[in-house]
């Protein structure tokens, strides 16, 4: 029985609540004449909380709203992921000094609208809605990247992000148009069933599996489409913008880009590859096709993580180092995607959650240190370990998790990824990943060395603790340590959510 208008509206309630919250924040800022930036922040937080509340109250049965918005467990999980990141980014924005004092309304408006874009991104298999969501997320991010108006680095970051983003989106659109041409449909699931159907082979004429006929064309189109995802996820051939933008943009925005935008893009990538991926039932041509895609993804994953780790070795700027580290972690997550099977997807989703805790923590620490040392260079941190013992302790835990040393959540994340990749036959990929983990040890521990083992730098003297930020970092550390030994809750959620995709 087709769902009624009211039911559909109820299904997209979280998105609407978030959008309304954005507008309300903008109006509130105007009413308070730009003086009460902190209270606007709280409004944004309330909006996020409301959207999550709405999300949780939805009935669990998966359904399609308005013909193209699939509302299911997988979407819900990623929406929670995006909402949680938004909340932390808002808190970071409170205590970061990089944002102009009176642009709060616009900032939270753009941030929440980017959130709306991310919500739609993870809950659709329709090409049109996908492009719209990507574009909404993108535009908001371009402006957010350039939000520190007077600062030339931020302007340059926005410019570069815009140019590269526009080019990538353009190429993706071209790819999607060809895909539309080949299948005549806009929905990935529909496309897959069309492609699986029989079609007359132009050469031999007899009914042959369509896939072997249109295979190469579909492959090229899919690759062009992947450019859009690759750019958002900062996979290797399309990661060039990431280091510069991450370094230039204000840190809360960088956090948003590195965690929320990347997470949502992974969600969309998982959903599309699950939908588009021809199930083996569709004949061996399809299986060969998915095999090829899988090994391509594995290759990209290996190159991404290796380049990310190697480049990070030589960084002196903390944000740029974390940029390369986040590229490397995108590489690790791609490992799970490359397996193209539910077991693998589940490990990628878990790794994203592990990534959530450790990376948010790392960026939070950058903000915390930037407040006392005034800049983001590693050697200006020298000796801070003794002056800010609590936060430095948290940083050590985050770094342990980023490297993947046991009892942290990072180790268990990597452990699942390696196991899934090994079972899927990518033995060589596991070895490359293990080597990368060892290499990553060096640049992460350079930070520890600076914090604890080196003589104090003068920048560290006027350090004043920031209780609110320290509290957030503390929570994230608890998360990193707690979900290490007891990952069962998250793992079960991820495994169950992935089942919705197939």
């Amino acid at each position: 029985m087709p769902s009624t208008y009211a039911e559909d509206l109820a299904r997209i309630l979280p998105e609407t609540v978030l959008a309304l919250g954005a507008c309300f924040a903008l109006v509130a800022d105007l009413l308070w004449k730009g003086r009460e930036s902190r209270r606007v922040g709280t409004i944004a937080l309330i909006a996020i909380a409301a959207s999550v509340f709405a999300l949780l109250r939805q009935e669990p049965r998966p359904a399609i709203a308005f013909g193209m918005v699939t509302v299911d467990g997988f979407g819900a999980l990623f929406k929670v992921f995006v909402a949680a990141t938004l909340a932390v980014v808002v808190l970071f924005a409170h205590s970061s000094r990089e944002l102009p004092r009176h642009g709060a309304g616009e900032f939270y408006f753009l941030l929440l609208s980017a959130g709306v874009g991310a919500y739609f991104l993870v809950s659709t298999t329709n090409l049109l809605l996908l492009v719209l969501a990507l574009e909404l997320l993108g535009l908001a991010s371009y402006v957010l990247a350039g939000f520190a108006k007077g600062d030339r680095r931020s302007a340059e970051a926005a410019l570069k992000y815009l140019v590269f983003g526009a080019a990538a989106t353009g190429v993706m659109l071209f790819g999607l148009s060809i895909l539309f041409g080949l299948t005549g449909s806009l929905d990935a699931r529909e496309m897959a069933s069309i492609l699986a159907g029989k079609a007359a082979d132009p050469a031999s004429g007899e009914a042959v599996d369509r896939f072997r006929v249109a295979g190469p064309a579909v492959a090229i189109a899919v690759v062009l489409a992947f450019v859009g995802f690759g750019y958002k996820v900062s996979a290797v051939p399309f990661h060039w913008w990431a280091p510069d933008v991450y370094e230039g943009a204000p840190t809360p925005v960088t956090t948003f880009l590195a965690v929320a935008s990347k997470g949502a893009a992974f969600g969309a990538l998982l959903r599309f590859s699950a939908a588009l991926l021809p199930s083996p039932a569709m004949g061996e041509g399809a299986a060969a096709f998915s095999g090829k895609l899988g090994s391509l993804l594995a290759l990209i994953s290996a190159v991404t993580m290796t380049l990310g780790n190697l480049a990070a070795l030589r960084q002196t700027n903390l944000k740029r180092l974390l940029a390369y580290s986040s590229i490397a972690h995108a590489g690790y997550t791609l490992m799970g995607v490359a397996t193209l099977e539910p077991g693998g997807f589940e490990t990628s989703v878990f790794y994203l959650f592990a990534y959530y805790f450790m990376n948010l923590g790392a960026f939070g620490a950058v903000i915390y240190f930037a407040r006392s040392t005034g800049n983001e260079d590693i050697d200006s941190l020298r000796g801070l370990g003794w002056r800010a013992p609590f936060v430095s302790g948290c940083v050590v835990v985050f770094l342990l998790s980023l490297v993947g040393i046991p009892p942290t959540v990072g180790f268990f994340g990597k452990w699942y990824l390696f196991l899934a990749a090994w079972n899927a036959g990518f033995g060589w990929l596991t070895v490359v990943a293990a080597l990368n983990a060892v290499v990553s040890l060096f640049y992460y521990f350079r930070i520890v060395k600076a914090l604890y083992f080196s003589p104090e730098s003068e920048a560290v003297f006027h350090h004043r603790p920031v209780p609110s930020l320290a509290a957030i970092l503390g929570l994230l550390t608890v998360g990193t340590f707690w979900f290490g030994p007891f990952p069962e809750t998250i793992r079960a959620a991820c495994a169950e959510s992935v089942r919705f995709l197939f």
Partner: protein
Amino acid sequence: MSLGAYLAVATALFVLGLAMMIARRNLLYVLMGIELILNAANLNFVAFARYAAPAGGEAALRGQVFALIVILLAVAEAAVALAIVLHAYSLFDTVRPEEPDLLRE
């Protein structure tokens, strides 16, 4: 006319757009390049819509709706692009894309 011809024109425009973005030394060319690429995609969409379902009906319009939305995106993107370019221009006092290179290796 055959579908291939339209595909050829669209590809030509796509190539020109890309070349314009990469080659020319003025940020505004980049903007123009973006528009060209999006137009190429639009042309593709409409052409496939026409040939896929000549009899009209919802399938035929699917391409046109997509094209419409893409045009709308192009407008939004052009606006934001211009704002960012001008903002950068006010700080770097140049439109050459390689001038602002504070963020590099």
